[in-house]
Every structure is written in C-alpha cells, then in structure tokens.
C-alpha cells in the first residue's frame, strides 16, 4: 500500500512539474516575441507578429543599426547616462543613508527621531504628490543634469534605505562598537572599519532595490533632466514612440532587446541576492 501511494505521489509531482513547465514557456514567450521581431522588417512586425522571420521578412542586423542611430540622439548615449545615474545614485544612497542611519540609531536625539519618522512617512508618499515642486526645485538649484540627479534620488529615495538600515543597526550589539572605542577608534574609524562591514547583507538588499528602481525609473528623470540634452533608456524608448507618428517597430524592438539583455544578465548573475533583497524590501512594505 505504501509503495502504491508513493508512486501516486510521484505521478502527481511529475504532472505538476510538466504543467508548471508549460506555464514557464508561456511566460517567456513575450520576451521571445521581442527577440524574433527585432530581426524582422518593420512591415512584418504588425502583420506577422508571432511568426519566425523568413527569407522575406528577415532584416538581419538592420533594425539594430537603425535603432542605434535613430533620430538625433544616439541610443548608446542614453544607455551611458542610465548606467552612470544608476551606479552613482545607488552608491550615494548606500553611503549617505547608512551613515545617517547609524547616527540615528546610536544618538537617538529628538532631531534624529523626527528625521526617522519623516523618512518612514516619505515611503507612503507617491511621486505624483511632489513631482511638480520637485522638478522646479531641481531646476532652481541646477540639479537637472545626470551628474547631479543622484542628489535628487538620494533625497526622494532615502526613506526605505534609512528604514532598513536603522532596523539592522539596532540589532547590532553596542558592545562591539564600545570595544572599538576603548581601543581608541574615533567615530569615523568605528563606522568604516567596524560598522560598515557588518552592514553588508543590508547593503546588498538596499543596493538591489535601488538599482532596480533607478534603472527602470521613467518619470523622475523625465521631469528633472533637461530633456534636450540628456536621456535615459526608458525616456529614449518612450521618445521613439512619442515623437514620430509612424514608429519603426522593428527598430524599437531591437532597442528593447538591447536594453533588457543587460538586465537579464545582471539578474542571472545576482539572482540569489535579488530575490532576497526583494523579499526583505517587501516585508518592510
């Protein structure tokens, strides 16, 4: 009897596995559609969206060449700005908020508490609430270039990072830092050689969340940056569709493919951390 129920169990698992496998294939179809259409001539994208390219509709690399040089703004320039803004903003957020979080958790003055509660409050404020005044403020202070936009990201994105760092610092026993102080470490040295290494797991989680946010963000850079000079990947793709009546769908798909390849590579390389980071961020809400 035991043997019988075991094989029934195995059969159930196999069926489940096959069903999920089929769903998985359906799940990747949209991405595969992008791949096949990026090699198709424009006119065939709309009429034969789901067909593989054939001798008649195959465009080779033409879509990619066209996409990269389309309009008066090279795509690689947008990609470069996207990369710089993402890296710089994430680095700035990680450094400044972790330092502030340590100060908040250890000093715990009234001012610290006010800053902390404001940070938590900022997490429930949607961007639309501040977008108009924020973009005007950024203009007035000349923060509207890719080199200065990380400051805006630090300001608007501080909430979640502060919240996660403060929570973690509070769980670190004070004795370690006291031992460092007794050994003659000043606060600066204590922070950089004792606290910072311990923050690593939270750093990775916060870093992942910020990278995903900044890289994909459309509205903030769209409103803050001087659009005639600077674009990021999402703005560039929106601009392709927005400014011309007839869009070259083949070229658009080629650019979309180019913009998701790095994301997928990044995902496959850091999958473990990404999933952990996302789960940590979500639980905090």
């Amino acid at each position, binding site marked *: 009897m035991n043997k019988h129920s075991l094989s029934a169990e195995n059969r159930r*698992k196999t069926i*489940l*596995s096959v069903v*999920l*496998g089929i769903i*998985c294939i359906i799940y990747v179809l*949209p*991405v595969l*559609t992008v791949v096949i*259409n990026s090699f198709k001539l424009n006119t065939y*994208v*709309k*009429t034969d*969206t*789901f067909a593989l390219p054939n001798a008649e509709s195959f465009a080779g690399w033409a879509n990619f060449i066209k996409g990269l040089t389309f309009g008066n703004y090279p795509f690689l320039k947008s990609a470069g700005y996207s990369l710089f803004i993402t890296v710089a903003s994430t680095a700035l957020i990680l450094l*400044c908020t972790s330092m*502030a979080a340590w*100060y*908040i958790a*250890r000093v*715990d003055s009234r001012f610290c508490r006010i*800053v902390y509660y404001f940070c938590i409050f*900022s997490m429930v*404020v*949607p961007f*639309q*609430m*501040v*977008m*108009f*005044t924020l973009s*005007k*403020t950024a203009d007035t202070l000349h923060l509207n270039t890719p080199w200065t936009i990380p400051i805006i*990201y*630090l*300001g*608007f994105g*501080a*909430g979640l990072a502060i919240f996660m760092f403060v929570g973690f610092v509070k769980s670190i026993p004070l004795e370690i*830092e006291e031992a460092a*102080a007794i050994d003659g470490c000043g*606060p600066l040295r*204590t922070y950089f050689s004792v606290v910072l290494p311990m923050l690593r797991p939270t750093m990775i989680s916060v870093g992942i969340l910020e990278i*995903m946010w900044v890289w*994909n963000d*459309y*509205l903030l850079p769209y409103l803050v940056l001087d659009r005639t000079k600077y674009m990021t990947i*999402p703005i560039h793709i*929106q601009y392709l569709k927005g400014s011309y009546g007839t869009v070259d*769908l083949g070229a*658009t798909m080629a650019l979309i493919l180019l913009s998701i390849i790095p994301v*997928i590579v990044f*995902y*496959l390389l850091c999958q473990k951390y*990404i*999933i952990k980071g996302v*789960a940590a961020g*979500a*639980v905090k*809400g």
Partner: protein
Amino acid sequence: MIRRPIRRWFPLFMGPMVCAFIIGFVYPFFKGIYLSFCKFKVTSDATFIGLENYRRAFQDASFVHSFWFTALFAVVSLVLINVLAFAVAYALTQGIRGSNLYRTVFFMPNLIGGIVLGYIWSMIFDGILSRYGTSILLETKYGFWGLIILMCWQQIGYMMIIYIAGLQAIPEDMLEAAKIDGASRWQTLWKVTIPNVMPSITICTFLSLTNGFKLFDQNLALTGGQPYLIQPDGNSIKTTEMLALNILNTFYGQNANSRGTAQAKAVLFFILVASIGLLQLRSNRKKEVQQ
C-alpha cells in the same frame, strides 16, 4: 559612551542625507500642499484661493472617471495576482523537480521596466487584435484587460517570492500532524497552510493594492489613455487613463491654468495611497500583538 563623540561628527554623518532629503522630499512636499490651495502657473506667482482647486478636481469628469477605472483595476488585479501567485508558490514548494528554474523564470519580468513592458505587450496585443481588424487603442475593455494581463505577468513572480518565504516558514511537524490525523490535502491547505501564511497574504494584498493605485509607466506605454471619449461639453475623457497619468496630464497639459487643480488632485491621490499604507501598518501591528 559612544554617543557623545559621534555627535561631534553630525555634519558628516547626517549632513548630506538631511540636505538631500529636504531638497528631494520635505520642501517639495510642503510646498506641494501649499500650492494645492493656490492659483499658479509657475511656483513663484502663486495666489491663495482656498479650496477652489479641490472643488474643481471633484468636478472634473476625467478625474472621477480615472478614479473608478483605477479602483476597478486595483481590485481585479489584486484578486487575480494573489490567487495565481499563491497557487504557483504552493506548487513550487511541493518539492517538484525544476522548482528553482521555474522560480527564476516567473520572477524575471519584475526586472524589466514599466515603459519597456508596456511596449512589449502593446506589440503582442496588437499582433493578436489586428487579425480581427482592431487594436488595443480602440476599445476601453481591451485596454483594461491588457493592463490586467500585463500586471499579472509582471507581479505574479514578485508576490510568489513572498508567498514562498511564508510557505517555507510553516513548521514541518504541523503539516505532518495534519497528515497523521487523516486530513486530506484540501483540508490541510485550508485549515493549516492558509492560516499560517496570513501575514504574507496581508503583505501581498496591500502591496498589490498600492501598486495598482500607483500604476503609471505601464499605463502610459500600453494605451496612454486611449481611446478618448468626447463629452457633450466638448471636453474629452481618456477612458483608460489611471489616476497617476491623469494628474500628470493635468499638470503638463495645454491648459497651464489647471496646475492648481492638478496639485489638488495630487494631494487627494497622496491621501488615498497613504491611507492604504497606514491601514497596512495597523493590520501588521495587530498581528504582532496576537503572536
């Protein structure tokens, strides 16, 4: 003993973050609240007009329409995403072969940005609908269900991760005990598993609700609010426009006089989203007390 020396380093530790926070959040936030009571085209020429902007916001048919469209979208997507994500998470924690690969695939769409997702799906929907001589931009219901499908595709993987974490935290002996007591699989699911993952269910419910209300990029890229419905008074309603997009269009539309109204809409939108957030905080607290 560590407090006092740190305090001397206040400018270094707190300075950059507090300055940026004031520029990027505190000042724009309060200025935004103030401007919602003003008439203005640029922020420097604001004149106080009291609640007029709010009255106009409530009278704006396109705003009211976008509210109901968004609310309906948020509720439908909430139910679908959570039911499907739970089902997938449940299946993936049964110890089947290939679980890791499947989990990787299901989560992948989350990494792709909203604008890009919107264009991918607009190509797919138009590829299907063009065979029937129509397009996603031509009917409100296509736009609505298109957005639902897109959001399910994107969000199921995310919620699935949270559900998997919840399911894996259920003590093994509890499930074992149910099995020994002769509970069927179905009974175990409803009487043991689901009550134990209630915290995850709360998190995911609120998360998908706020995501639904705040949706912007996907909405802009998939339909951009089309199709338009011309009203008897000559104004048009963008029938698939959601709240966030409606606010943006009011701010940066042709009529610069409506910026005050747009800011009032933004404040209302903030109150709506923030109350959902506070509700979540409270329900989380209640659970903590019970445990």
